[in-house]
């Protein structure tokens, strides 16, 4: 193995030297050698989506002697056209960390001991069965991930919802995009963006709403920069609460106070109406107006429940509602100068300018996440800038298959692969495809993610199986949930690829196959399903998450529902799953097409991908004969919502006088369990830090690298200060990247969430600082 790797490196050394010689001496020839070097027999290339973010870049994985050794951008993939970011280029190194989990471990007398994986799976099935018998069907739970492959999520849902009859299936995507989902559902009745990345090639103005794309969706961001370079009429406006790499690159940076994006969005609508920039043809034909409940709470207490109620209003009501949001009034709330609000409104309002809005966690991790999603759609709907090339409200996703596995397969408590558990027809469809009695499927949703971990703490849930995610780093108000998981009679199963703070609390650890060590599919932000084959073998006894679930399902007596053969189970699962989405609104490409192409967009109808939904020029599901058809809602209209500004769940006061904002850096993916094992990424950002405004740091008396204690009502953490580093928060705010398990910033954060989407707000809580 080692020898072959050396040969490969030597080959690279030769190629580099030949390339350098070629650059220095045009026309230089090395006879047969150049040909040999180009026709490199050492390596073969196979396509896959990137393992990391929701952009879904196509990569080519280079394989030599059974090991992944290199990565190239896939030139056939329209997402990235051959370019990656540093995470993608080094992604295969994440397969080969020295502490990779290769054997199953079970807890015996407090210590973890290695056992054959089949024995561990026996124990998982036995514990699940015992818990269910003793405490009822809702005492067991599955917590998965937007990094689950589509088959992973599908079999999890089938086992828990279809066979075991509990809706205790959630995924970490609840923490990253459920506000995007409820935003889409309330405004359009169907989930996922109407546009696609090609919007970038057509838009004149990009507005990033609390979205540091330069670091979080870098490949899309450099596509924007290349467009701005190529065309002279392109502008980037960064609308944010903190100065980031995106602000550096933007033509204009506008800073707002946390939570006040709600007010600014309403002020933009106010201006559009006041200046009569409304696209009346569009609004009269395709829009209806609504309002919902207000003062809706923050979900910080156990058993919190909320159901919104839509009421129809008319345009005049909406206009009256907006009178509280004149730019001058909103300037006082938001700190955004009225002229900047008018400037943004004018960009949206100018009929000659195509506007694409991008957002991700800034709007989704928000105690009014559903509302702010609605409000940005309001702006696009008022001016009719939607569902056509370049005019696009674009909700980006964070994880490689948050769309594919969580939103489309529906691995959330209320969802089914098609529709929701509350709907009788949807339950019947699922029961029929799954070959289970329809009574099996519980019509009542159970626990969303935060409430699921609260239930584990309370003891309502006693068995939880966690796959492909690291909640013991990512749960807000972390201490409560870690203490809860560690309680005496809780049983925690964790499937993962490396040891993490979550495997630390496990009673069983199952070694998982990672990414291209298995066959699977992801679904990216622009409705693109991306298939990958098994390119290398998993190490040791590591097993795909799908197959782990199948093994347990069979032990529980569901052989009939999980009868697939290991040689072609992914294909069979895909074809079964595809039946849920039959029809022009969501038709998925058949397996044979997915296997061939570098990603296929749905709806995939008559062999054609749908790039812009709701627009009959592109979307075959449109049937009303008009220029747009918003067929997701019963009234065939997109809904504008009157949603007010309401303050954050917690905000700075005299005692806790700073905002705490958390997020990522370009180098690290989520909790760093993979990227920290990639040398170049770890070396670039080896540990976390707290960004402080230089003047706040001076007042506190700390210089770069000195320790600061961050204290909230939940907990405290001491970490090094970073001043004028990667980003600069405004005065009165600190920012902490959450990737570092040595600095668990979520001990400090608050578990308040959007009452509609149940997504926690990781961007806002109150802390105070001390020099440590």
């Amino acid at each position: 193995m080692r020898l072959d790797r050396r040969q490969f490196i030597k080959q690279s050394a030769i190629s580099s030297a030949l390339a350098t010689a070629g650059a220095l001496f045009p026309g230089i020839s090395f006879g047969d050698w150049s040909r040999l070097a180009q026709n490199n027999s050492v390596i073969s290339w196979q396509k896959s989506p990137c393992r990391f973010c929701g952009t879904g870049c196509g990569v080519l994985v280079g394989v030599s002697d059974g090991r992944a050794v290199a990565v190239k951008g896939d030139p056939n993939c329209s997402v990235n056209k051959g370019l990656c970011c540093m995470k993608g280029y080094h992604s295969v190194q994440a397969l080969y960390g020295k502490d990779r989990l290769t054997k199953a471990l079970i807890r015996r007398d407090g210590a973890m001991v290695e056992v054959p994986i089949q024995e561990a799976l026996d124990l998982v099935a036995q514990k699940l069965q015992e818990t269910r018998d003793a405490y009822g069907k809702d005492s067991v739970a599955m917590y998965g991930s937007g990094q689950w492959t589509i088959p992973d999520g599908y079999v999890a849902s089938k086992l828990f919802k279809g066979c075991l009859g509990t809706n205790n299936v959630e995924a970490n995507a609840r923490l990253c995009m459920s506000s995007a989902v409820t935003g889409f559902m309330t405004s359009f009745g169907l989930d996922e963006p109407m546009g696609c990345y090609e919007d970038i090639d057509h838009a004149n103005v990009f507005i990033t709403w609390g979205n540091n794309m330069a670091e979080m969706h870098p490949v899309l961001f450099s596509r924007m920069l290349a467009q701005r370079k190529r065309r002279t009429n392109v502008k980037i406006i960064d609308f944010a609460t903190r100065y980031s790499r995106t602000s550096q690159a933007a033509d204009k940076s506008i800073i707002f106070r946390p939570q006040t994006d709600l007010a600014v969005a309403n002020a933009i609508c106010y201006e559009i109406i006041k200046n009569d920039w409304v696209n009346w043809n569009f609004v009269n034909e395709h829009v209806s107006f609504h309002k919902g409940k207000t003062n809706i709470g923050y979900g910080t207490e156990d058993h919190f429940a909320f159901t919104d109620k839509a009421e129809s209003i008319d345009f005049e009501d909406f206009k009256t509602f907006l009178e509280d949001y004149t730019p001058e009034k909103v300037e006082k709330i938001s700190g955004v100068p009225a002229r900047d609000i008018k400037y943004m409104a004018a960009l949206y309002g100018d009929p000659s300018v195509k506007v694409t809005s991008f957002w991700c966690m800034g709007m989704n991790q928000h105690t009014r996440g559903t509302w702010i999603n609605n409000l940005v759609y309001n702006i696009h709907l008022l001016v009719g800038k939607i569902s056509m090339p370049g005019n696009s409200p674009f909700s980006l996703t964070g994880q490689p298959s948050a769309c594919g596995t969580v939103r489309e397969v529906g691995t959330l408590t209320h969802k089914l692969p098609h529709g929701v558990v509350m709907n009788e027809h949807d339950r019947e469809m699922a029961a029929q495809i799954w070959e289970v009695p329809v009574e099996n499927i519980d019509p009542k949703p159970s626990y969303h993610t935060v409430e699921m971990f609260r239930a584990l703490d309370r003891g309502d849930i006693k068995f939880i199986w966690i796959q492909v995610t690291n909640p013991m780093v990512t749960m807000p108000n972390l201490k409560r949930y870690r203490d809860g998981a560690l309680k005496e009679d809780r049983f925690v199963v964790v499937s993962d690829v490396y040891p993490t703070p979550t495997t630390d609390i496990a009673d069983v650890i199952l070694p998982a196959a990672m990414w291209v060590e298995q066959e699977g599919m992801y679904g990216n932000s622009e409705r693109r399903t991306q298939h990958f084959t098994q390119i290398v073998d998993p190490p040791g006894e590591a097993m795909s998450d799908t197959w782990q679930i199948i093994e347990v399902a069979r032990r529980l007596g569901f052989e009939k529902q999980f009868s697939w053969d290991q040689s072609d189970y992914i294909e069979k699962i895909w074809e079964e799953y595809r039946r849920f989405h039959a029809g022009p609104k969501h038709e998925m490409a058949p397996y044979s097409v997915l296997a061939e192409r570098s990603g296929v967009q749905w709806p995939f109808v008559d062999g054609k991908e749908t790039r812009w939904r709701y627009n009959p020029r592109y979307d075959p599901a449109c049937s009303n004969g008009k220029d747009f058809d918003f067929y997701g809602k019963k009234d065939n209209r997109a809904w504008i919502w009157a949603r007010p500004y309401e303050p954050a769940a917690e905000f700075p006061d005299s005692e806790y006088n700073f905002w705490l904002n958390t997020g990522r850096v370009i180098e690290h993916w989520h909790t760093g369990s993979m990227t920290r094992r990639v040398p170049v990424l770890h070396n670039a950002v080896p540990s976390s830090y707290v960004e402080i405004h230089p003047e706040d740091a001076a007042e506190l008396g700390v210089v770069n690298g000195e320790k600061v204690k961050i204290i909230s009502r939940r907990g405290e953490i001491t970490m090094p200060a970073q001043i004028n580093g990667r980003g600069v928060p405004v005065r009165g705010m600190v920012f902490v990247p959450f990737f570092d398990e040595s600095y668990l910033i979520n001990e400090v954060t608050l578990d308040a969430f959007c009452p509609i989407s149940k997504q926690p707000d990781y961007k806002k809580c109150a802390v105070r600082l001390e020099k440590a």
Partner: protein
Amino acid sequence: MMNGQQRHSKSAVCVALLGVTALLLVSENVRAESSVPGNFDNQGAKIFAAQQDTPQVYLDADSGGRTLTDFYSLRQYPGSPPRIPHEVDTSFSGNETNCLSCHRRGGYSSEFDAYAPVTPHPENTLCYQCHASVQSETLFVETGWKSIQPPRLGQSFLSSSPPPVPHSLQLRENCIACHTGPGAVAEIRVSHAARGDCRQCHATVVQSTPISEFERK
């Protein structure tokens, strides 16, 4: 190292460059005052500005043939300010911005029959503060000075992966200045600067300590 072919391609670039200089000055004046702090993230704003301001033809241009050997021969250690390798007209003294007339933008100089390298820090206008001229080649006494090896090329972790940034970014924040255009050193020139965000792919591993691997504590 020069050969006929290289000279030929050089003159083609030169013609194209003349036309864009005027445009360039205009676009810079138009850019609005920004509220974004200038001095964070290794002053990365300079890269984005350079990507916008540098004409495409310049970003794509082939190298004029300067090599790394030439580059390091003017430096006492990697990162030291290079000496001035050409005669400086005496009339230049007293007007410290004249270096920038060539080195701010680069471009072809018929006087030296070469492309001027672009400075990554044109905001520092007192050039002679750091860059020494060469009046004599003889030494006062022999020196025992020894330097360190310059950073190796090709430090990619995988054959196909972009190499991380191997040098300190202090006074060299703008990647585009040194790594693109006909004045760039051949071995370190890139032709894809139009993508604009260098640090999307090239990690800034700005540290002198040995590379360490992540270990759980």
